[in-house]
């Protein structure tokens, strides 16, 4: 379909800005594997400190890239399926808030005033602009939801008997989760951290801040994943040359994500004090609720791919695997999506380990954790984001892909890189190798008394994987920016692949309306989180003053320094 110039421009910027910043994020990813493997034994390289780079890597790759993309993809799906464009100034307001927020946070990080990592746990204090920037980016990213919901409600009134397109449900579910979970982090940032970072408030309740963060932090994971799920259900079967096995299965799993995405965050705090075991256990069990939509998805997608393979003439039980268009340069999006799925199998399995209280005690905060989430967020999430960014851009701009044969092998290179990288991290994690640590300075420095030789092979593996990943990413940047700077070949249009359903079940009202699901979502959140917030508010003792990463002596709050001056 044809879209307005304004929406075109909006989508270009919302894809171009994060992908440009991603070059910085990827550079710091590579650098970490170099530091950690003990190739260099120093605290900084090229004037950028290890932990500053780690903060940039996390914030850019996991928050900026994913938020910008989710908004651009949301605009595209809503416009494509409803043939109506989102409200123009609402969309641009969202864009400017996100961009200004990103610039503020980027300045604070690059200036070295916010080396607090992307989880910004207090009482490590960052520059106030880092917090403010993060808040603007987040608020900006959920503003379009209101415009999309408005279009949806109007459409539903006109078409009460038509099933809502699956991709639309995916987008609306995703941004509803996002809106709900970001309320907690907005409260953390605006009420707890900002006044404290400005020196107006002397102390902060650290456990409460962490609990608020993880209310947001785990739902964030699904905010990353659901655009990928939407592509898996609505595009992958079509690209494979088949049909979606069941349309209803997609609806059920999307709505289940609405229920289980938020009330599970405490499983990130199994090792925290001041939260009773019962609450941790309850949320730990709810986490396994998320396994249900994941199983449904695994089955439905496998069945869809099998159908596609059989249609292409495969024989035998697993013969369909051999008949899929893996290296077809015209269907490169298939390659990006299937590679993400392969990684997600391992990402899901390692995730089950983390969600189990006892097993988590073995791996919590070790290198195992980044080993796990690089197979999710740097797996299906990242590959679907970069693949779809290229697809949307080249389609809307009417440009041919630059180096199409290179393009189609990028995701496979990436899979090889990630598997080696994550194998190294996971193995190291099982031997106690900590995450978020400049190992090269101490544990991986043979001249240091803390030298730990067991971690040499594990960090070397991670380094090899990191180099392959960086090479794949470099090729992607060449393809993407090569496409961007090439000549326009035809009139551009917004077109998404649309899978038909093999079992296209009749409309079931329960799975075509949001209200009942929103009510259950609310109840589950209250059950899981009222006791958690209550414990986090009441069990801890005094709040903590602010610290900067370089000094064990707290920063004097404004009120106290006044006392000293008198």
């Amino acid at each position, binding site marked *: 379909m044809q879209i307005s110039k304004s929406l075109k421009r909006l989508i270009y910027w919302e894809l171009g800005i994060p992908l440009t910043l991603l070059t910085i994020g990827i550079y710091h990813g590579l650098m970490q594997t170099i530091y950690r493997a003990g190739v260099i034994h120093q605290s900084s390289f090229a004037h950028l400190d290890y932990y500053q780079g780690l903060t940039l890597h996390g914030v850019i790759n996991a928050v900026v890239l994913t938020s910008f993309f989710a908004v651009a993809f949301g605009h595209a799906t809503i416009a494509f399926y409803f043939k109506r464009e989102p409200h123009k100034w609402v969309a641009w307001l969202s864009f400017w808030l996100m961009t200004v927020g990103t610039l503020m946070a980027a300045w604070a990080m690059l200036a070295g005033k916010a080396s607090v990592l992307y989880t910004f746990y207090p009482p490590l204090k960052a520059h106030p602009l880092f917090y403010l920037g993060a808040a603007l980016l987040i608020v900006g990213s959920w503003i379009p939801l209101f415009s999309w919901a408005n279009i949806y409600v109007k459409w539903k009134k006109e078409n009460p008997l038509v099933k809502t397109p699956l991709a639309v449900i995916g987008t609306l579910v995703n941004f509803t989760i996002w809106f709900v979970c970001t309320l907690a982090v907005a409260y953390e940032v605006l009420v707890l951290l900002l006044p404290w970072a400005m020196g107006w408030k002397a102390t902060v309740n650290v456990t409460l801040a962490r609990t608020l963060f993880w209310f947001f932090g785990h739902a964030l994971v699904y905010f990353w994943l659901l655009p990928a799920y939407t592509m898996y259900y609505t595009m992958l079967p079509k690209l494979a040359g088949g049909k979606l096995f069941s349309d209803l299965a997609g609806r059920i799993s999307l709505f289940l994500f609405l229920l289980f995405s938020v009330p599970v965050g405490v499983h990130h705090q199994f090792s925290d004090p*001041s939260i009773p075991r019962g609450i941790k256990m309850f949320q730990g069990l709810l986490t396994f609720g998320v396994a249900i939509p994941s199983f449904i998805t695994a089955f439905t997608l496998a069945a869809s791919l099998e159908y596609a393979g059989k249609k292409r003439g495969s024989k035998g039980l697993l013969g369909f695997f051999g008949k899929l268009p893996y290296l077809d340069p015209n269907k490169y999006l298939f390659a990006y999506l299937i590679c993400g799925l392969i990684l997600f199998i391992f990402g899901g399995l390692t995730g089950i380990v983390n969600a189990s*209280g006892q097993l988590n005690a073995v791996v*919590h905060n070790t290198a195992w954790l980044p080993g796990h989430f690089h197979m999710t967020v740097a797996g299906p999430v990242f590959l679907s984001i970069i693949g779809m960014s290229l697809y949307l851009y080249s389609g809307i701009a009417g440009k041919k892909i630059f180096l199409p044969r290179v393009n189609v092998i990028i995701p496979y290179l990436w899979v090889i890189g990630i598997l080696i990288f994550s194998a190294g991290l996971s193995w190291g994690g099982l031997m106690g190798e900590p995450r978020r640590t400049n190992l090269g300075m101490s544990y991986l420095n043979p001249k240091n008394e803390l030298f730990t030789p067991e971690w040499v092979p594990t960090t070397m593996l991670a380094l090899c994987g990191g180099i392959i990943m960086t090479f794949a990413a470099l090729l992607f940047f060449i393809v993407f920016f090569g496409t961007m700077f090439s000549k326009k070949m035809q009139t551009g249009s917004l077109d998404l692949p649309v899978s038909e359903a093999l079992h296209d079940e009749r409309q079931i009202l329960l799975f075509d309306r949001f209200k009942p699901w929103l009510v259950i979502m609310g109840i589950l959140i209250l059950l899981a989180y009222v006791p958690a917030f209550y414990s986090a508010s009441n069990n801890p003792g005094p709040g903590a003053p602010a610290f900067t990463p370089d000094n064990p002596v707290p920063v004097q709050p404004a009120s106290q320094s006044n006392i000293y001056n008198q």
Partner: protein
Amino acid sequence: MDPYERKIILITGAVLSLFIFSILYARNRNNDLPECLPYNKAYLEPKITRLDEKTYQVYMVAQMWQFQPAQIEVPVGSEVDFFVTSKDVVHGLHINDKDVNMMAIYGNINKTTVKFEKAGIYKITCHEYCGIGHQSMQAEVIVNESSKY
């Protein structure tokens, strides 16, 4: 409903039950999650207390960028209660080979109990980023053969 779908639902249910059973089972058998204790200033004073031959209490204080006490010596077979807190930012406490994993947080007391059944040196590593000296924050538990005592 497609018969394959019905089968897959049954399998999913069985697998999930197995997972949940394992979690609840392991909970009673092995180390449980850390205990939730009310705050008390007394824990801010690092110390090792010997309650009897095989029972010790350690008040572990994490701070930028060291653990105190930095070295804990106990005989084989000892049961040690760790009470953990932080004087400043968030730190992590991981005892290698013992599956002990706790966060040390300002104004909060974390507690777990560990039994050391094999002699050796167990490294305690800070595994949460705590500032520029984070990568050198390590302590150790030395578990001696009982003949020394």
